């Protein structure tokens, strides 16, 4: 498939193949996380007791991470807005800020994991912690994936041919869609594991 076929919207749906591909990928991601949430629900309903997040986990750090991730959703959509207006400096600034927030999320998560490991808590400690480490770990891997893609886009903005490529704006939008999905997953993980 050549670049024109990817770039131009389909005549029936009006959606470019690239964007449609990203949405189909996200639909498959919905199923991936649905299996984990199903596991969480089944195990929780089966358990004789389930710890309250405030007693078992560090809620203030998780709240901070929620604010960080929400902020990064705003910064990446601002990067898209700057790319839409062909403002390369603005795009670099907002995308760099997105990356900084992404690393901030991972650093806070590393502190949280480190504290738990230092207390002798791991996935084998209990069913609750097994679910907690599995779900937050998979989410963390998705964060790392987003960092790789967003870093590539930031690098491409420094290459004139890439920045002027008609596909670039669609790439930014696709990366943004993925990042917002990762944000949505955390929006549900946060109350499910930490607050309820």
């Amino acid at each position: 498939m050549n670049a024109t076929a990817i770039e131009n919207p389909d005549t029936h749906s009006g959606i470019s193949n690239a964007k449609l591909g990203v949405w189909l990928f996200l639909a498959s991601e919905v199923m991936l996380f649905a299996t984990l949430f199903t596991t969480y629900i089944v195990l929780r309903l089966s358990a004789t007791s389930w710890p309250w997040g405030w007693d078992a986990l560090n809620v203030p750090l998780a709240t901070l991470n929620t604010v960080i991730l929400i902020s990064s959703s705003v910064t990446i959509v601002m990067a898209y807005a700057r790319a839409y207006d062909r403002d390369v400096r603005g795009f670099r600034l907002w995308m760099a800020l997105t990356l900084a927030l992404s690393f901030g999320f991972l650093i806070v998560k590393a502190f949280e994991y480190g504290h738990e490991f230092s207390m002798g808590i791991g996935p084998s400690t209990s069913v609750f912690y097994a679910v907690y480490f599995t779900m937050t770990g998979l989410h963390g891997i998705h964060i790392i994936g987003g960092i790789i893609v967003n870093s590539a886009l930031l690098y491409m903005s420094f290459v004139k041919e890439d920045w002027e490529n008609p596909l670039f704006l669609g790439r930014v939008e696709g990366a943004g869609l993925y990042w917002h999905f990762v944000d949505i997953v955390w929006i549900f993980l946060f109350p499910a594991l930490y607050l309820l």
Partner: protein
Amino acid sequence: MEKHNDEHRPNVKLYIAVFAALLFFTGLTVAVSRLHLPRPQAIALGLTIAGIKAGLVAAVFMHLWGEKKLIPKILIGAAFFAVTLIVIDVLDGVWLTPQDTGRMAVADQHPDEGTAPTAKPTAAAPAAPAAPAAPEAK
């Protein structure tokens, strides 16, 4: 860089408004969790707030509001299968086969996670050795 008709015109003021709403709902969900509501009400309220936040992100940041109809159709399909998966597994795991995954069976297998009834080990579900209690992380 030319633009195409399926790319959305950014609305920065709306993005900022949604950002403020997301921060507000984050604070609200944390505050509500401190009220020690009964768990069913707390879960319903927490998931409702999470649903509102997710809806805002999807509608505004992901531009689902005003997106071509095919995209919502794809998502409705995914949501249908996700809900089906959850309902079938919960029905099967909790109510239809309680001998394997019910509260009493889990209590037998994980006596460290609650008040476990004393049960003799069987071939189907041998009693697990008592594990040390998990330290509490603050």
